């Protein structure tokens, strides 16, 4: 069976600012219809990677493809197929919200006025307001409207919710789910970079964790939560000598043990059980906890 052309294909991407390498040999592939997370700390190389997809930067080594096309060679076609919410949203401050949206719509072949109206109401934005007088959260909301209305096949979000208050962050994500994800199932692809992972947890299908420009972990989100677990055990006396090499991290405190595991959960649970613990429990790590556990390991 032929797999469809990936929405995004990055192969061995390397980019350096002068001698400072921002992205090193990064490869990842996003299938159409998926919501893909690019997780990393500040300065991990997320924005640089996205800028290469948007042809704002040219890869120095390796290549990037958007729906099979090289953004440097097919700039117009690539830009038509995607919309982008940058981490720093900037509009002409003298334009009103209405003028800004009309201006941005003029570059697009398609613009869904119904969704525009729905989102303006949902975010309680005043179309007459000058964008220079908007709060950071409101500017991001306008940028999201401008990204959703063209109904492109790919939505690229670069740290969209950082610096926003919790309510605005929630509304942002609900709008992405409600307004952008409508249409033919499996035809709207999302690439989101963030270090605020918890909010996007339910949206993410698959993710790559990058650290200092390198891909550290790429996994399906459900599979990640199945593999990464926290196991807690309490014994009647101080814990016996148990081989816990397979754990990522072990914490001991008196009669208690806490393990962080990646895939070795069932095996270690069995080993702990053999020593008749008073209490033994396990829970999955959230994607944010997986992020921390992986980068601290």
């Amino acid at each position, binding site marked *: 069976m032929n797999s469809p052309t990936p929405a995004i294909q990055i192969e061995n991407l390397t980019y350096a600012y002068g001698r400072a390498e921002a992205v090193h040999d990064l490869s990842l592939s996003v299938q159409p*219809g998926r919501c893909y997370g690019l997780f990393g700390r500040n300065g991990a190389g997320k924005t640089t990677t996205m800028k290469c997809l948007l042809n704002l930067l040219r890869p120095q080594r390796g290549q990037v493809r958007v729906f099979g096309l090289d953004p440097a060679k097919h700039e117009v076609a690539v830009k038509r197929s995607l919309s982008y919410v940058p981490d720093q949203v900037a509009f002409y401050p003298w334009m009103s919200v209405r003028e800004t949206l009309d201006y941005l719509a003029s570059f697009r072949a398609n613009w869904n006025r119904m969704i525009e109206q729905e989102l303006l109401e949902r975010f309680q934005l005043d179309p007459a307001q000058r964008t220079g007088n908007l709060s950071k959260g409101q500017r991001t909301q306008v940028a999201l409207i401008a990204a959703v209305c063209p109904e492109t096949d790919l939505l690229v979000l670069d740290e969209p919710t950082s610096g926003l208050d919790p309510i605005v962050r929630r509304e942002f*994500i609900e709008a992405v*789910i409600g307004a952008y*994800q409508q249409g033919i199932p499996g035809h709207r692809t999302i690439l989101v970079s963030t270090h605020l992972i918890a*909010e996007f947890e*339910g949206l993410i299908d698959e993710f790559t964790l990058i650290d200092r420009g390198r891909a550290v972990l790429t996994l399906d989100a459900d599979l990640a*939560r199945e593999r990464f677990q926290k196991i807690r055990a309490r014994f009647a006396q101080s814990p016996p000598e148990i081989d816990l090499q397979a754990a990522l991290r072990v914490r001991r405190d008196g009669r208690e043990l806490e393990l962080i595991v990646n895939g070795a959960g069932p095996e270690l649970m069995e080993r702990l059980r053999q020593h008749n613990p008073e209490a033994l429990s396990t829970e999955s790590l959230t994607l944010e906890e997986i992020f921390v556990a992986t980068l601290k390991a």
Partner: protein
Amino acid sequence: MILQINFKSGMPIYLQIVDQIKAAAASGALQPGEALPSIRPLAEELRVNRNTVAKAYSELESLGVIETLPGRGCFLKENQSTLRKEVRRKLLIEEVDQAIVQAHHLQVPRDEFLKLIQERLDALDDKRRAHQDHKED
């Protein structure tokens, strides 16, 4: 029917939705013929991917729990299980076996385990009755 996603359960999100809707149907919280929430508001409310909710619904449909009426949405089926008796038994045996293994590990003896099952069946009947009374009020 209020659904709740727990990212710490280790269970795939779409299966959590499937299980909770099955549980709601078994307890009477969701009545035959009653409409399920449509995909968009449910996805927004749970803040999960719409494809995940769609996957849960298509799984429920293939299990014969719900049916989709074009243009009208998804509804709990009147006559729920279309699976043959042996298949139904087999599916249930897997779940029961898991509970037995768990009971063993938690050192719950046989009669206590059986008593617990009785209690849970009674509790479910009570819940059903409560929903029925509520409906008749």
